[in-house]
């Protein structure tokens, strides 16, 4: 029983990484109805920017704030320059665009900062949290930051006019235009916010997985999985999905014999497919009923 509790705790700790990323995934999905395959790379690039700022002597929180602002602006610029012209193109063309963006960012980051692994600092320290060896103060801090972001997003969407306008633009663009909302800019804003949230996720994740251009590849897959598991329409579901994926992955690794690190990912993904088949909208998502 103690083993079980410990593994759950360790799962929550890894799950926090996925939850962080899943939040960014849900954010962009709400704004543009797609999964952005370049999201992980955008977060990685932001994290490198913060690392570079710290190398130049900017203190951690200063670099943090500057990076979030940079990422917000960069997300908007990418949307305006690259994806606004594709707004009327077929969905598959957009997906190809995401892949192209992925290749570009990964390659440019490799050229600027090369592919060696770098240490990344944490503001929370890395001593055991409340005396537990399984969860460090950094991981606890990361969980705290994730929940804080979730709370802020909730308030933004529920109680601000811009949040309301963004929701309207995402759910019914034509009606949104008819009440005077500039839906095109709402999409750009969604990109900016997703990019900013992604940058926070990157800065939280980097101390755990180390900083290098390919650091987000696995994380993004888990982030997608978590978001889909929890429901792509629900930020809360995405965060819960992240924790669940982390816990499940750990338990499978512990209790099912023959499952090494190699098979963790396939099994976690298989679980998600099973959940989707049973409950296509995800655990916390809103079922979308099509009217015929």
């Amino acid at each position, binding site marked *: 029983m103690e083993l079980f509790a410990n593994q759950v705790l360790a799962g929550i700790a890894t799950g926090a990484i996925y939850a962080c990323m899943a939040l960014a995934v849900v954010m962009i999905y709400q704004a543009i109805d797609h999964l952005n395959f370049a999201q992980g790379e955008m977060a990685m690039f932001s994290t490198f920017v913060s690392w570079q700022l710290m190398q130049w002597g900017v203190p951690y929180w200063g670099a943090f704030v500057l990076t979030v602002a940079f990422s917000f602006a960069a997300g908007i610029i990418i949307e305006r320059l690259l994806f606004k012209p594709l707004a009327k193109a077929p969905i598959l063309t957009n997906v190809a665009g995401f892949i192209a963006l992925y290749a570009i960012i990964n390659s440019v980051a490799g050229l600027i900062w090369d592919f060696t692994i770098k240490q990344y600092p944490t503001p929370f320290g890395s001593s055991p949290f409340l005396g537990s060896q399984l969860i460090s103060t950094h991981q606890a801090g990361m969980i705290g930051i994730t929940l804080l972001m979730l709370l802020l997003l909730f308030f933004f969407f529920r109680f601000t006019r811009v949040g309301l306008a963004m929701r309207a633009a995402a759910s019914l663009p034509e009606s949104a235009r008819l009440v005077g*909302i500039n839906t095109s800019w709402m999409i750009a804003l969604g990109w900016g916010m997703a990019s900013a949230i992604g940058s926070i996720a990157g800065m939280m994740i980097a101390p755990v997985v180390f900083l290098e251009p390919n650091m987000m590849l696995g994380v993004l897959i888990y982030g997608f999985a978590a978001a889909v598991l929890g429901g792509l329409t629900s930020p809360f579901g995405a965060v819960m999905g992240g924790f669940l994926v982390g816990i499940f992955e750990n338990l499978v690794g512990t209790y099912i014999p023959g499952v090494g690190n190699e098979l963790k990912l396939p099994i976690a993904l298989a679980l998600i497919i099973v959940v989707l088949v049973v409950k296509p909208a995800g655990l916390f998502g809103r079922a979308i009923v099509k009217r015929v």
Partner: protein
Amino acid sequence: MTAMLNVKDLRAYYGQVQALHGLSFSLNEGSLTTLLGANGAGKTTTLRAICNMVRSTGAIEFEGKPIGTRSTENVVRLGIAHVPQGRGTFTNMTVEENLQLGAISRSDKNAIGSDIERMYEHFPVLKQRYTQQAGTLSGGEQQMLAVARALMLRPRLMLLDEPSFGLAPLIVRDLFRILGKINREEKVTILVVEQNAQLALELADQAYVIETGRIVMSGNAKDIANNEDVRKSYLGY
């Protein structure tokens, strides 16, 4: 008196297909005008062209300003509210959020709360349901909500696309009564597109009849209602 909305030689296209063939009409300030016509005559397209939701050529002037090249949201921001066919309700949001969205482009935030209260006076049924998801409302209630949402803009001009569509006759009567009241009391100019010609002509003071993308008749609503051809084709007696 100058016209509030002036439309000249409006032609609209869906891809290669031309839906409007040089439509011209004008609305007087404070008037309640109806646009009548059969299915496919181009009524909806006319309204959509005013809000630039369909590719069109021709001159559209609102209070003296040309608006033909403005984007939909910028046309709306001038004070032209459009209640689309199918109502365009934000079904996954609450009734109150729908009303707030109607006022989203306004800058006088303080007055929005009192405007919502005013809407609840016009449409008491909405007050009972204000925390409910709009998608759970009945068709008639959703139409009331759509009109209320449009009014939240404090529009100078309101365009309504077949508000009676799919509603029970009693509810239609109620809705039209309220529209008349809004036109008189709030001085909102109204252009309503209708297939229910009889009701529309009772309500309106001006009327245009449109056939295959052209205006074929215009004038005082009473005169149109008494016209032999209109009676035969649209009123059925």
